[in-house]
């Protein structure tokens, strides 16, 4: 067993374990954290496949941003697990059908003659100066530029739609425009009044602090 194979099995074992724990952990926060572990280990496997750009992007996007927001939400929910488990037996038949479908699909792909090891052999290892990032960029912005731009536009529409759906202008909002705050001059807020110092009647002589007057 070579070093790389050993690393692969090590990562694969962690990945399978983390994946199992995601669905078996009783606490949703723990489940989300196991999902983070699963993503991270999957990134490790991708590095073994010399796909360093995809691996690092997986960590950057999914671990660094998506799962943080996920955790954010999950931590603030008060989830009652007993209540969630109530309908377990009602949903079981439907869930079973979906599971069988998934297994059939995987067998069709992984067990077929078209995608087996003989047909899709391991790619030849690249030289040390091979840049996965550069190759991906070249392909994305030349051969697949229309598909890429379309995906970008769809995402932009989704962002705008999400904001438009949730944006509410509250009437009691105390929002202040910072530009207005910065523009304020001293004379808008403050009026300096010249006043003569006045003596308080009846307290002279008792307070030494006012002796100078």
């Amino acid at each position, binding site marked *: 067993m070579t070093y790389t194979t050993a690393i692969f099995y090590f990562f694969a074992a962690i990945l399978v374990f983390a994946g199992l724990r995601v669905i078996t952990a009783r606490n949703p926060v723990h489940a989300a*954290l196991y999902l983070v572990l699963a993503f991270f280990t999957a990134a490790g496997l991708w590095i073994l496949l010399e796909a360093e750009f995809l691996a690092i992007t997986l960590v950057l996007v999914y*671990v660094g941003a998506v799962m*943080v927001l996920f955790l*954010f939400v999950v*931590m603030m929910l008060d989830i009652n697990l007993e209540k969630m488990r109530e309908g377990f037996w009602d949903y079981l038949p439907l869930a079973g059908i979906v599971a069988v479908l998934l297994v059939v699909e995987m067998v069709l792909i992984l067990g077929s003659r078209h995608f087996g090891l003989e047909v899709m052999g391991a790619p030849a290892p690249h030289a040390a100066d091979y*840049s996965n990032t550069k190759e991906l960029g070249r392909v994305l912005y030349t051969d697949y530029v229309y598909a890429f731009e379309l995906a970008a536009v769809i995402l932009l529409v989704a962002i705008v739609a999400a904001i438009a759906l949730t944006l509410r202008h509250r009437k009691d909002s105390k929002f202040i425009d910072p530009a207005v705050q910065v523009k304020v001059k001293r004379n808008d807020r403050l009026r300096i009044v010249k006043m003569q110092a006045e003596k308080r009647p009846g307290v002279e002589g008792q307070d030494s602090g006012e002796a100078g007057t």
Partner: protein
Amino acid sequence: MESVGMDWTAIQTVVWTLIKILAVVVPLMLGVAYLTYAERKIIGWMQVRIGPNRVGFLGLLQPIADAVKLLMKEIIIPSGASRGLFILGPILVIAPALAAWAVIPFTDTLVLANINAGLLYVMAVTSMGVYGVIIAGWASNSKYAFLGAMRSAAQIISYEIAMGFALVGVLMAAQSLNLVDIVQGQSGGLHHWYIWPLFPLFVVYLVSGVAETNRLPFDVAEGESEIVAGFHVEYSGMAFAVFFLAEYANMILVSALTTLMFLGGWLSPVTFLPDGIVWWLLKTGFVLFLFLWFRATFPRYRYDQIMRLGWKVFIPITIVWIVVVAGMMQTPYAYLFH
């Protein structure tokens, strides 16, 4: 015999790598210790105080005394805390702060791992630091800690976007993700550094760096006057010290990255002086001084102002400047970048 020989080289590689890692981590930890001392002294001078001067000559042994004190203290785990995660929190904060140093070059040859996606690696690893903060806040089972974790998570995510875009500008200018190549793209003296063509990105990166490390004036995650000490309020002894170490290690990391990407790294500012690690240290030290200066100067931001600055000011600035850089690179002025 041959297999034994193979094992021997493998062991040699592992030992050699471990020695190299120690050669980075030990000076870093010393740097962290004396950064705390420098912080107290410099802010002391700025506020016309003396700062620590009791332990050792000029108080120079103060960080060591602090470390010994923290080591001797008991680590209390609150009874309502989630034990495993409570201990995992500080570990997940310090691990990315140290792991990112693997790809930081000190000179063009003095680098632990010179990988061609170095910049991406740094971004990915530093984006994981937020987990430690969130887990610590949640596992403490305390309202203050939880509020601190929420604030910190929102803030780190917001500023990470601006930071990432600022780095996109740098990699467009350098046309490389390799940190050594990025520095070498700035060779030729002071006026070739990326700080000039990418000045808006430099400002955004530096301020976002301050926000990412939860330093003043962006330290609402700790906010001792509102939420006691934020996410690490329940931690004591060495567990607290680990958070402290991570914060300062991250400060040095952001300073080092600013130096590498905008200030020419180990390159000398004038051509008649040789390049070397001295310049790296001087520039990083200067950026660190800015961190301390900010702390002594600015009052804490209000939370909605922090969010506004990140989303409505910094992100648009970076996007506009990326477009400007991309346009400039198609003109005869492209030589400005490389």
